[in-house]
């Protein structure tokens, strides 16, 4: 059974009705026509709804508690995963994990935030909010990838870097800034995929890719709608307005040339069909791996520098 949002109420009701009719006549004679009709109607309404989501609705889907997390993708998209722990300096951050992985026939370094799906997991994973040691582990693995000549794949899903005393004490800003600087010149291809929430510097700290991709119902933003609303509107209840204004959706960011491609999700969101979502991710990642593997290192770095030099819109 899926969790539904308020804006999905009519779809939820239809799906419930279909289930009910099916259960009344399991041999499927009596209500076949009604079921078919309802399913058709439901599919149409889904297309209508999910094709025209507001930014705020997209934020909610991106944060859906049942949305697949990195550990799901590790088993559905990759094989032979070898998790590598620790930053070699302070500790091992479970909010940001990584290791060797194989996708299709290609060997890569896989790094990503991992949110939990229940209270226990979320405590262990700190809701996917990494501390400095998480970002430093990520950099260590990227350096290792450079040594082993492996492309780096970064799966991004975080509200943001952990905002607490330990973060400040141990240099959250230094860890993020160093990653941005090192990733700019890392001598292997980097592909960044925003799978759920791309929250500010904590997302970008593993997001400087040669290809930057977004799931169709993910968001990528400089600040959360709640944070923006409480600063600019001085009231967090204006989050839906702030979400619209920030234009954090994949469609907007493709138009603004922040990202290169959108990976389509199953109707209603990735949480409705893990298998289909994973197949799409695999297909698109392999395409980009193939594209980037054709470049020499110097060409790759030149293109990366040009890509980030061109970020932004201003008048001159």
């Amino acid at each position, binding site marked *: 059974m899926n969790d539904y949002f308020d804006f999905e109420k009519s779809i939820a009701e239809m799906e419930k009705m279909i289930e009910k009719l099916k259960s009344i006549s399991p041999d499927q004679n009596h209500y076949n026509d009604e079921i078919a009709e309802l399913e058709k109607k439901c599919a149409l309404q889904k297309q209508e709804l999910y094709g025209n989501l507001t930014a705020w609705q997209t934020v909610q889907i991106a944060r859906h508690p049942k949305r697949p997390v990195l550990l799901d993708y590790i088993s559905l998209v990759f094989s032979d995963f070898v998790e590598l722990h620790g930053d070699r300096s302070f500790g091992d951050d479970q909010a940001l994990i990584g290791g060797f992985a194989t996708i299709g026939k290609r060997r890569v370094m896989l790094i990503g935030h991992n949110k939990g799906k229940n209270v226990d997991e979320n405590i262990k994973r700190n809701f996917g909010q990494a501390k400095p040691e998480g970002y430093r582990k990520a950099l260590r693995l990227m350096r290792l990838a450079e040594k082993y000549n492996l492309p780096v794949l970064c799966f991004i899903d975080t509200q943001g*870097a*952990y*905002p*607490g*005393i330990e*973060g*400040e*004490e*141990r*240099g*959250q*800003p*230094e860890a*993020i*800034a*160093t990653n*941005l*600087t*090192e*990733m*700019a*010149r890392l001598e292997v291809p980097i592909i960044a995929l925003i799978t759920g929430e791309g929250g*500010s*510097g904590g997302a*970008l*700290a593993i*997001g*400087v890719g040669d290809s930057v991709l977004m799931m169709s119902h993910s968001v*990528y*933003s*400089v*600040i959360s709608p709640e*944070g*923006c609303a409480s*600063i*600019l*509107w*001085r009231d967090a209840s204006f989050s839906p*307005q*702030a979400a619209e*204004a*920030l*234009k*954090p959706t994949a469609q907007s*960011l493709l138009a*603004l040339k*922040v990202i290169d491609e959108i990976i389509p999700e199953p109707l209603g969101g990735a949480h409705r069909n893990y298998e289909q979502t994973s197949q799409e991710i695999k297909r698109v990642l392999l395409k980009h791996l193939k594209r980037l593997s054709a470049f020499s290192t110097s060409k790759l770095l030149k293109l*990366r*520098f040009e890509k*980030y*030099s061109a*970020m*932004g*819109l*201003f*008048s*001159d």
Partner: protein
Amino acid sequence: MPWFIKSKTSEEKRKPVKDDIWVKCGSCNAHVFKEDWFNSLSVCPKCGFHGRLTAYERIGQILDIDTFKEMFGRISPSDPLSFVWTRGSYKDIVKQTQDKTGLNESVVCGIGKIHDIPVSIAVMDFRFFGGSLGSATGEKILLAANYAYEHKIPYIIFSASGGARMQEGTLSLMQMAKTCAGIARLREKKIPYVSVLTDPTTGGVIASYAMVGDVNIAEPGALIGFAGRRVIEQTIRQKLPDNFQTSEYFLEHGFIDLIVERKKLKDTLKNVLQYYNR
């Protein structure tokens, strides 16, 4: 209590109040004659509080007389998201801010000399949208880095910023990567990059170019930190000590090299740059 540990931390209280004759210190509330205030480089003669400077005041204090040549001055914000909030449209407020400050953006860039050493310099100005990092800011900081790269001269950035500019959304976030890409390239030609952190340096700016200097220098008592104080207090559900997120806190935790008083800043920059042995 040491003078640099301020009892007041709200942004408003830190601002010196100026009128025609005197300046009220943002820390000890002393009334200082305007002339004395400027003669002491906007540092309170009574308590040593370092007041904020405009970008051009800073340039005047750091560079040798008549050596500054401004560059990239025409680059200014557009309104890529057509952003509107309670105060109005971003476009209109940019215009008002430009009229009020005489600045096109939150950073002034150019070349000049520090005790005869040629440098490429970028100086942020907090008056322009809280010194926030927008697309035009990022472009100018990158171009100034590229100038240093092409001419093989040291690059110095003075930061004064609340962080990334919300009104340009994710494009502002991308400026963190863009500016760091420029800084990263300097390493290939072994070009010095010195970051000077002034009050305040927070959010997306401290988490990008401000933190990756070969040498990081801060002015005393500056607010330096990543997450907002209120956000942290909400996360950990307790009050934070007053000296949290200051230059002194950052020095103590190993993230900056030096805290330098304003009157010694120019000489210190020269001392650092003279060790560049290439």
